[in-house]
């Protein structure tokens, strides 16, 4: 590549100029409206910045906002809620998504219909998902309670949203319902990249379907599995819309994730300095996950650029 550029140096230089001309408008926009605010958040996180008390000014306070966050019980509870939600929903989504992808991969009839059905939950607004599932679980005579009682699984209707543990059930089910399709589609693409002759060879050697799955499918699907896993973890960690609409973090703050806590600190308490510190903590976690993701992807994506 180096030699190519040197050989056609004037052409190469003109191409460089053209490239920058084409890239700059979009890149400039991104830098201006995404990176600049991010640095502002960092700055805010080292200062007192309280919109309710403007007379206090914005004095520099070192890491006080961060130490406050790290000694704040509600912060740690929110972290625990986020981790609990992420672990449970992502694990379920990966397992169900894999099963769904395998089923889709092995059937030709009705694949289009299934694909459309599967894509719909992924594409509709999260707010709609949250409302639909809240409706199904809400009120003693909602459809979920009616079905449970009909099936003889309970005699009393459950009031899902007033107990700490039961409130998580509709939240996690709704998330699984909404995002499993996406996982399945990613894994299906991975399955379709596996060379079918491998299975034929295994069959000739007398390998049972289960052994084929363990020794061919799983290892070759590993990159796709990893991408789906990191993607989903990133998303689940940032959960906001779903819980805001379903429980608003309630009962009390029993289902409040870290993003919702931060949002409340910012827009209810108007403590922008402390809120900025919380935002930066969230950013650092997602950034680590994103780096992992880019490293996994990067090998063949960014490396393959011309």
């Amino acid at each position, binding site marked *: 590549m180096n030699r*190519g550029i040197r050989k056609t140096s004037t052409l190469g230089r003109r191409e460089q100029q053209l490239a920058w001309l*084409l*890239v700059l*408008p*979009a*890149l400039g926009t*991104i830098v201006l409206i*995404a990176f600049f*605010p*991010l640095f*502002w*958040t960092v700055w805010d996180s080292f200062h007192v910045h309280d919109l309710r008390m403007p007379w206090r000014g914005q004095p520099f306070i070192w890491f006080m906002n961060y130490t406050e966050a790290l000694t704040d019980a509600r912060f740690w509870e929110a972290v625990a809620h986020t981790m609990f939600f992420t672990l449970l929903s992502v694990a379920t989504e990966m397992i169900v998504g894999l099963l769904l992808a395998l*089923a*889709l991969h*092995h059937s030709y*009839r*009705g694949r289009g219909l*299934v*694909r*459309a*059905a*599967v*894509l719909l*939950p992924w*594409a*509709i*607004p*999260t*707010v709609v998902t949250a*409302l*639909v*599932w809240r*409706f199904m679980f*809400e009120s003693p*005579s*909602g459809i979920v309670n*009616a079905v449970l009682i009909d099936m003889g699984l309970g005699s009393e209707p459950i009031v899902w949203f007033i107990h700490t543990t039961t409130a998580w059930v509709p939240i996690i089910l709704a998330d699984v*319902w909404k995002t499993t*399709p996406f996982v399945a*589609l990613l894994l299906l*693409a991975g399955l379709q990249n596996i060379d079918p002759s491998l299975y034929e060879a295994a069959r000739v050697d007398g390998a049972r379907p289960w052994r084929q799955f363990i020794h061919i499918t799983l290892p070759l699907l590993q990159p*796709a599995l990893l991408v789906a896993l990191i993607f989903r973890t*990133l998303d689940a960690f*940032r959960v906001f819309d779903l819980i805001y*609409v379903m429980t608003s973090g309630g009962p009390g703050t029993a289902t409040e994730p870290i993003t919702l806590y931060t949002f409340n600190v*910012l*827009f209810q308490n108007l403590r922008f300095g402390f809120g*900025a510190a919380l*935002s*930066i903590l*969230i950013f650092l976690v*997602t950034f680590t996950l994103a780096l992992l993701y*880019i490293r996994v*992807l990067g090998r063949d*994506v*960014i*490396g*393959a*650029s*011309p």
Partner: protein
Amino acid sequence: MKRWTRWSVLAGMGTIVAAMILPLYWAIVASLTPETQLFAAPSLFPTTLVLDHYCALFAERNFWVPIRNSLIVASTTTAFCVALGAPCAYALARLRFRWNAQILGVILAVTMFPQIAIVSPLYLLLRVLHLINTYPGLILPYLTFAMPLTVWLLVGFFRQLPRELEEAAMVDGASRLRAFWEIILPLSLPGLATTAILTFIYCWNEFLFALAFTLGPERQTVPVALALFRGQYQVPWGQILAAATIATIPVAGLILLCQRRIISGLVAGAVKG
């Protein structure tokens, strides 16, 4: 495949499709059920269906206002993103220049920015510019997630086109820019359309920014209006679900119209680039 495996796969898929569709079906049925019967005795096959909730939505609640807001914000953002994103994506996909790989990495990283990390400075910025509760006050923040997404998807599409196309044009004396404008752009219309649709859907569904940067019903987008729906005495579930159904229609229509392309675009964007 053995017969029983085929049957079990079919049965499994039937269950999954049912699980995917049932909640939506149930919501639509409920949106057509009179309020008095809504919680009386849930039945999958209702006998009386009425359009009351839909009528109330537009007659009493001016639901067309959030629909108008969402349409304006989502389509303007999409137009901006495609117009600025397509040249950028082309350069990143095809031209040799320094920092190419790094810029692509940065753009991919921005698609993963947590919105909450920039919501407070954006709020302060929009307040200084007097853009809180305005259309530009939503479009500008939306560019933060829509622009990198557009560029990222389009890079994938441009890479799929054979290089010979513009090389042939350039051998014939066309400049790089003309080759892009006259050869590549028309050929990548399907890719541009798919990208535009995905960007539009992301903007249509966005919630956090719209919640933070609007103050009242006159500029609220559909998701915010839905989430803040309140009744006078109790939760007006019939109307909420009618509104939810309407919010879903554009997205569902776009998805069903071109699901195959959307899937390949999405998967390429996430897996192969």
